[in-house]
């Protein structure tokens, strides 16, 4: 029998779907019988989904222009 501790140990790989079918079946059986582990699996899945959905912010123009200036200086120094 799989314990809650065993389930938690495999949680990441279960959510990433990187485990074999046999283990997956055992884990899925566990969460049908254990409401706590079901909630933990479900809310962890949502946590990952929310972060993945975060908007990618563009690099601010002033930050980019200072980066380019620093690089220009470096490149000029290297070529002498």
């Amino acid at each position, binding site marked *: 029998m799989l314990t809650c501790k065993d389930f938690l140990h495999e949680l990441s790989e279960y959510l990433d779907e990187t485990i074999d079918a046999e283990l997956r079946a055992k884990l899925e059986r566990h969460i049908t019988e254990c409401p706590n582990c079901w*909630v933990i699996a479900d809310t*962890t899945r949502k946590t*990952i989904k929310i*972060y993945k959905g975060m908007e990618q912010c563009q690099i601010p123009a002033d930050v980019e222009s200072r980066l*380019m200036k*620093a*690089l220009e200086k470096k490149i000029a120094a290297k070529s002498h």
Partner: protein
Amino acid sequence: MAVSSLAGIDEFQLVEQARKRDATAFNELVRRYEGKIFRLAQHVTQNREDAEDVLQETFLKAYEHLDQFKGDSKFYTWIVRIAVNQALMKLRRRKTDKSVSLDETIDTGEDTVTREVAAWDENPEQRFSREELGGILDSAIEGLEPLYRSVFVLRDIEELSTEETAEALGLSIPAVKSRLLRARLQLREKLTRFFKRKGDDAFAYM
């Protein structure tokens, strides 16, 4: 920057040209990854000024040491490794984080934190405005140990594979996996305070 003619060129070729000190090729590599590196640096340092320093140091170092890039990994993984090292160095210099190191052995036992177990709505993030949500997500990440934070940012935000993350952080694959699990569970715990379903509110005082 006049880069449009290089926009379609593959990365391997650009690196080859940049190695020969072709500044235009190097600038194109910078253009491709500057946004990701800046975002990564912001997540790890949690500070915009430090993130800008990290961004500059990363590309200056990459240019300086381009001959050390062996080409057996992706260029992006290589610069991510430089950026994470620079970012952790920044944190180490801050008084509050005295002992941040990539090599440091930290407790990666599986006594994972699951004190608060409450169900969430299907899309609980919709309860918050974009700004509020951004603030909640950032402050949750900020509360993680820097090493958990780095693993989580690379795996779940930048979407690097386990192998690439291990390479970028100089960690073993099992270390990446156990830190990722802990980071995810700790974030879940922190977000539960905001996202738990109304009515299941056994922890209203939190």
